[in-house]
């Protein structure tokens, strides 16, 4: 009799604390969003169907972001993507007053100074888009295929360091994924560990 009660009680307790924030999963439809860009446009994922979309979470003061911009690695990826007709969206989810938060003018100036070429910069100061995609680090990379499926999420490459010298030694996950996608092949490593600074959500 006691045992029965035990089971009953615990069943209730065990299920109580589960409140998962459903993170987007690879090979599932990417969560739909509508967001504002730094050049005053509104962009929605639905309207981008037919194009490959890259989401790059960034924070220009983060040492890990600097690693990939100071070395030119990130700009290289952006340009290659643009040449293949891929739409590259840079997302800034830093909250006002926190590291990496910028206004539209500064965002544009930063990119031109770094010679960076994303198709658009999405300003996400309330962190809505970041939390929708469960983005955790800068950089944190996502690739959505032309059918609207999330096909890659994770790190930019395999070596989690802030040292520029490691870029050449790393397995370039994002470059490989974009290459495989263009060639119509399966992406080998499609869910990897993102590394970098934490995103400065409010």
């Amino acid at each position, binding site marked *: 009799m006691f045992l029965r009660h035990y089971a009953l009680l615990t069943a209730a*307790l065990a299920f109580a604390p589960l409140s998962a924030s459903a993170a987007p999963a690879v090979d599932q439809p990417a969560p739909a969003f509508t967001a504002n860009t730094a050049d005053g446009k509104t962009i929605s994922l639905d309207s981008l169907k037919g194009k490959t979309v890259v989401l790059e979470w960034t924070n220009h003061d983060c040492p890990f972001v600097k690693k990939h911009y100071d070395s030119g690695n990130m700009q290289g990826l952006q340009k290659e993507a643009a040449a293949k007709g891929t739409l590259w969206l840079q997302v800034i989810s830093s909250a006002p007053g926190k590291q990496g938060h910028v206004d539209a003018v500064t965002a544009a100036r930063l990119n031109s100074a770094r010679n960076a070429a994303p198709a658009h910069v999405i300003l996400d100061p309330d962190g809505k888009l970041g939390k929708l995609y469960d983005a955790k680090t800068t950089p944190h990379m996502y690739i959505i295929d032309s059918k609207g499926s999330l096909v890659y999420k994770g790190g930019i490459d395999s070596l*989690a360091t802030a040292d520029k010298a490691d870029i050449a030694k790393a397995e370039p996950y994002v470059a490989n994924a974009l290459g495989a996608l263009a060639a119509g092949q399966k992406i080998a490593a499609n869910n990897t560990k993102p*590394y970098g600074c934490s995103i400065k959500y*409010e």
Partner: protein
Amino acid sequence: MVQPGSQVLIGLEQKIIPHWHTYWLNPGDSGLATSITWQLPAGTSAGPILWPVPSRHKQGNLTNYGYSDRVLLLSAIQIPADAKPGSSLPIAAKANWLVCEEICIPQQAELNLTLKVAAQRGPVNREIQAAHAALPENAPWPASVSYAQDKLQLRIANPELVAGKLEEVWFYPFKWGKLAHGAPQAVSRDGDTLVLDLQAGDAPGTAGETLEGLLAVSEKSGRQTLTRGFNVRATDTGAALLPSGTSSAAAGTDTSLLAAMLLALAGGIILNLLPCVFPVLSIKALALIRHGAHAHRSTRLHGLAYTVGIILSFLVLAGLLLLLRAGGAQIGWGFQFQAPGFVLAMAWLMFAIGLSLSGVFTLGNSVAGLGEGLAEKSGYSGSFFTGVLATIVATPCTAPFMGVAIAYALAQPALHLVLVFASLGLGLALPYLLLCNWPLLQRCLPRPGLWMERLKQAFAFPMYATALWLAWVLVLQAGTDSLLIVFGGMLVIAIAAWLFDSTRHFATSKRRIATLLALALIIGAYVFGYLGLKPQLPAAQGASKESAGQYWETYSEARLQALRAEGKPVFLNFTAAWCITCLANERVALNKDKVINTFREQGITYLKGDWTNQDAAITQKLAEFGRSGVPLYVYYPADKHAQAVVLPQLLTPEIVLEYLSAHP
């Protein structure tokens, strides 16, 4: 100074300014583990960083695993066997780490150290030794993991953990993404197994995959909290996710207050069905049937009074617990049952209620009016005290359940504890309260008749059965002599009941004398019984369970003083069955042949004090050393006048031996 062929530990110390942290092996949602690249002379090699137990650092919705304030990262360096004494080994290390508060700064340092090779062992560095002792050890318990959709369940078979007074349990996976790093980890118990219900992370494991990680167990001993790490390797046995075990005290879970209150409410309702409570409720219902003719309002008020009685009693219980907790008392599962005096009183109370139900005596207009007296009573105080009685009567039957509630509640803030207990009381009162307020339900009750008397008498038997069980518990606690006390007391109670009932038609003055006599008999019986009880735990139940060829003696202050007077060295170990740190220390250090042999060779008497049941003498001894809890290890060197030396709370054989040799 290092010896050829030996292994030395080299530590990288990080002193971290407040609010900043560096990272563990698996940094969690962001961040980067510290790394060390070694440049070593030929033949010398370095092992990986030996990671201490990390802590969790929450920032917004991100969770990191790492270290704050200070951490000493050890690596083992193997010195070549052919190293020549007198030569030196230059050791260079490049350390890279990321330190973050909200923003992150990658840092690095190049460090150099020269090790002198010598034929003999050099002095040991205390800090490194302490850090080494605090390292996680490999868990000796079998562990398994089961995977489901986005959840996984880790099961660790370990009676020590389950019996422990765990403050918090957290599983840190070695690999990134196996778990959602910040998700609540629901800890429960299933028999001897600790069960963790976990949420899968961004790179979830799949069926068949082994899950490896560090289980950090924090336990409270007195006012201190000790954290110990165990490396766990859980294999997938292919079993489906099992329902969790019973709930636990782990504060790492985010069980919401509301859920806990609802659970307590449900638990309270279930209490009504337990053998010792059901008769009380039924008798109230019977009373209601007789009340039938009365106004609804009166019935309703009776229900309310009963409810208030119960809830107030539960609040008193909650208050009692809070007081005990504030006093730093060790409260465990069914704590009240550690006190033989309490068990004795409950056994007698059950017996007395049984007698009353059997009709040996009836408590007329008295406080705890039961049965007929209750039914005839018009005052609401009767209903109120029935509520109080229901709570008291419920206690022995509900000990296993109350243990769960208490354990949960104790880990919560005071307000939570009070609310949970109030909910529990409301649950217990609810069936009768509904019955009183719902005339429709009352109509469902059968017609009064002789069957009510028979039913009431039948309810006596579960009471006797409970008394029997409690007598058995008492024998376990206080030995067979207590049988005489518990049954002798019952005899006295029976006589008192008879005296009380047979004089009920006497004149008031005589009646009063008889009542007083009966009361005196009962109080006398209890006082004598209580004094006569000798709490004695059979050794098999305590922490001091050992096989033959025992190499320690049970601690007593007299024995200690005698040994000291003779100037003999003594090693003192205060332990408890529920103290995991204590047991771990015994397993990894004190029970090792190396240590036992040294004790023997040096003629050290090893005294062990078991604090499993609170022992005033040991508590006092602990206080002498400024401690309020176990473990406590003290070494008294041979000299009569030598100062006692207190050892650290985390031991390795080396630490013990070093303390022994440092104080010859």
